[in-house]
């Protein structure tokens, strides 16, 4: 005869099966593919959680059977507690379930491995971000996202607690989602730096708090007493200002880490998703500031950091487009609410007043990019000369101490090569290749990205060899020859 214990066993078995499937999936994926360390760690942690969840479920079932046999201790209270616990476990695994497939799909051949490594290294050099890792997920959207690490951490902790385990290591991991179509492409994936900005905001709560306060203050300044007249509306607009401030923060954060390559990638992506047509560039929406405003801020930061002077003469439509967007007068900005043009210039004015705080926060959390900028100014021509010859530019790493500035400089130089006339020149220099043939052009852009990625990979290898005390290209052996 079926009793309450059967119901419990049934429910536990169904959760057990779910967890078992997920565990097997994680094991299979990890065994057959390579991942960036954080993704690998995430899959490993899911496996560990699965193992512990299964053990917990077994123990619960055994306890239930024991209590049922004893009858006296099989109380409704115990049963309800266990059912609640099962429910929690199920819910948390449902959340994890959402993350695991995109993470498993983001194997090493599907993501810009060396760019992620570079970004991770840059992140770790920032205050309070030592030990940070970046886990990559792929998304079906043609956009870049950051998944809240905090909520995932909460899920893992809740699951740990529900299964009686309190030592699940979560670490400082940023979850960045890349569009599956961009795969290992280098140029467009530079946009993930923006998402790292969101990761910083999630981790450095004081910075996010400062931006929130600035948003609220600026609204107060513009509105005065009206601010408190309609709390619901105030809350809405404050939240909107926060969103815009966060977005600008992330853009500028990305600029500080990766330089103008981010702006070039942004203009390409914005063009691709169609937000640079008509009057859309001037349109603010609830979640994002107007693209024109974003480019205006990015350009200002690039000029302020001294980057733009080095690319100002770049013969490229993209550069002109960026400058044109940045020059759009502020009075042409407009706000779209519920799909309609809202007459709220006051909100836009309030936003203008909080930009100073955004800049201050960005400078506070990032390092001075002058090394990278200088390296770019010094080496860009040589990098581009290598690329024009179809040569991986890692040969340029000289005997001087290697620094993270070098890969940043190489990425920017390669981006300039890609945007300028140099790419068509390279194509034309090859037999039977036509720069106006899109198939050919696309093939050589891919090659260009491969050379750049290889240069970054080589940088890390050379750095390791240098730290280990081995000489590197252009190093001692060659110097001896030079001396003799």
């Amino acid at each position: 005869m079926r009793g309450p214990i059967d119901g419990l066993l049934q429910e536990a078995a169904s959760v057990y099966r779910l967890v078992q499937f997920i565990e097997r999936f994680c094991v299979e994926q990890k065994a057959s593919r390579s991942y960036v360390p954080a993704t690998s760690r995430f899959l490993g942690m899911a496996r560990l959680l699965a193992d512990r969840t299964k053990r917990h479920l077994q123990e619960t079932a055994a306890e239930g059977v024991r209590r049922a046999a004893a009858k006296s201790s099989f109380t409704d209270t115990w049963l309800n507690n266990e059912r609640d616990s099962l429910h929690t476990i199920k819910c948390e695994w449902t959340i994890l379930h959402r993350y695991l497939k995109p993470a498993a799909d983001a194997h090493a051949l599907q993501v810009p491995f060396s760019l992620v490594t570079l970004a991770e290294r840059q992140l770790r050099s920032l205050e309070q971000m030592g030990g940070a890792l970046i886990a990559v997920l792929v998304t079906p959207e043609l956009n870049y996202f950051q998944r809240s690490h905090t909520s995932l951490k909460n899920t893992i902790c809740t699951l740990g607690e529900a299964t009686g385990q309190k030592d699940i290591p979560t670490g400082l991991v940023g979850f960045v989602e890349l569009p599956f179509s961009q795969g290992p492409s280098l140029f467009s994936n530079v946009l993930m730096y923006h998402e790292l900005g969101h990761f910083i905001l999630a981790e450095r709560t004081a910075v996010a708090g400062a931006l929130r306060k600035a948003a609220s203050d600026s609204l107060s300044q513009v509105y005065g007493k009206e601010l408190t007249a309609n709390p619901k509306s105030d809350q809405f607009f404050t939240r909107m200002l926060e969103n815009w401030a966060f977005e600008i923060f992330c853009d500028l954060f990305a600029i500080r880490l990766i330089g103008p390559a981010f702006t070039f990638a942004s203009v390409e992506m914005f063009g691709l998703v169609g937000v640079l047509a008509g009057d859309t560039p001037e349109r603010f929406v609830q979640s994002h500031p107007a693209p024109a405003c974003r480019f205006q801020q990015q350009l200002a930061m690039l000029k302020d950091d001294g980057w733009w002077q080095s690319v100002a003469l770049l013969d490229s439509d993209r550069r002109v487009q960026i400058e044109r967007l940045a020059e759009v007068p502020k009075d042409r900005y407009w706000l779209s609410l519920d799909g309609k043009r809202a007459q709220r210039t006051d909100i836009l004015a309030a936003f203008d007043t909080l930009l100073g705080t955004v800049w201050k926060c960005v400078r506070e959390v990032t390092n001075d990019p002058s090394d990278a900028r200088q390296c770019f100014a010094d080496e860009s021509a040589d990098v581009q000369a290598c690329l024009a010859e179809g040569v991986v530019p890692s040969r340029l790493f000289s005997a001087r101490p290697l620094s993270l500035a070098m890969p940043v400089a190489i990425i920017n130089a390669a981006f300039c090569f890609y945007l300028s006339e140099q790419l068509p020149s390279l194509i034309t220099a090859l037999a039977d290749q036509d720069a106006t043939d899109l198939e050919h052009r696309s093939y050589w852009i891919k090659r260009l990205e491969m050379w750049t990625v290889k240069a970054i990979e080589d940088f890390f290898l050379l750095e390791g060899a240098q730290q280990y005390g081995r000489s590197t290209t252009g190093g001692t052996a060659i110097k001896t020859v030079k001396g003799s």
Partner: protein
Amino acid sequence: MGVVRREELQSRLLKGLDDPQSLVITPLLDEAGAFDSDSVDVRLGQTFLLPKSLQQPYFCPDRKSHDTIYVELFVPFGRYLIVPAHQTVLGATLEFIKLPRDLCAEILTKSSIARTFVVIETAPWVHPEYRGCLTLEIANVSNTPVLLYPGRKIGQLIFMHLDPDMTRPDTDANSPRKGKLDPTYFGPVYPEGPKFKDPDEDLAQIGITATWTIEEVDPDSKKGRTETSVPTLQRGRHQKLLEVWNRIHGTHGRALTEVPDYLLSAVMESVYVIDPVYDSPAPGGLVQATVEGPNQIFGAGALAGGVCKKPGNIRLNIGTFARLGPSAYQSIHTHSVIGILQVAWALWEIFSNQTVNLTTQQVVVFRAMWELSRGERALAKEEILGRCQADFDSQNLGVLAAAELETILSDLERIKCIKPDSTLQTWTVAEEITYQFE
């Protein structure tokens, strides 16, 4: 042609890219250990191409091949790839090299690696001006699985001087490639599969052109009989047949040879035609053609699928042909006795099909049904009637009465050209047709 010494290599590494003697090898992770007096050691990269099992029991080196025969695999430093005994894999050197115009090179398996019965090169020669990581054809010819670690030394490069006469740039003003680099294997940084043209394209370059001969008689031409060769450079049988179709209907402004649409469709959809010959301008007079079916599968020989002789006799068994392809392949693949018997039965069916004479009315109705339905949908009597009226007029066959259509349909059904549905209200063109065209 002398081997280049270490000192010269190192000196060339220092030269700028614009120097014609410049040599690039990057990254050199351990320079002191990399150079021997006459060679440079190279390491294994992290990306591999593993050959995969193919759906068909052979590999055809053509344009599509490099997308279909490999699975890409990334093995990070610190991990390893296991190459089973007697298996092969494509890898690449970690080092990217660029050779100047006056040097060529050869890559050899490092002797210590070779002594484990692993070879890394079957195409060891590196041409002057090559740039890229070198793709390695790694074969484990030993009887035990071998572990390959990315980052470890695997081969050695030996550089050689070229005869100065050979290093002059291409100055032929008429050459379309004058002064240009060959893009075929330009700048790879990971292992890359082969890049083939289609066999027809390659052979055409040395004058071997597979063609169909089309003999045509143009009544307006004083030349009388003309013979045209149609090259078979197109990549699929459909394109080939389309080309024939265009020859017939396009080039001469009017059809010299009438090929009924439905027959051409049948041919294009189901069988492979070789050597079609068009030799009669008369309407309906068609063809001498060999219909190649099973002999594609079993190899050329006596098993031709059917031979169509002029004037206008054509014998097809479309459904049997269509089914024969996959089932025959499956049988070969699985060594299934039953499967092979089924194939044999299908072949017998093809050869034993008897032709049936149709009346002109039956031909017109059948053709109309084929054109209307393409064998894919059922047709009602009214629809067939409507479609046939014009044809009957044009063929001076008078008016097609509903009762007469009923009889024709019944006849066509009896010889299995069409199939009725269970209510006898609609008909579909039969999958299998044995048909003699008069």
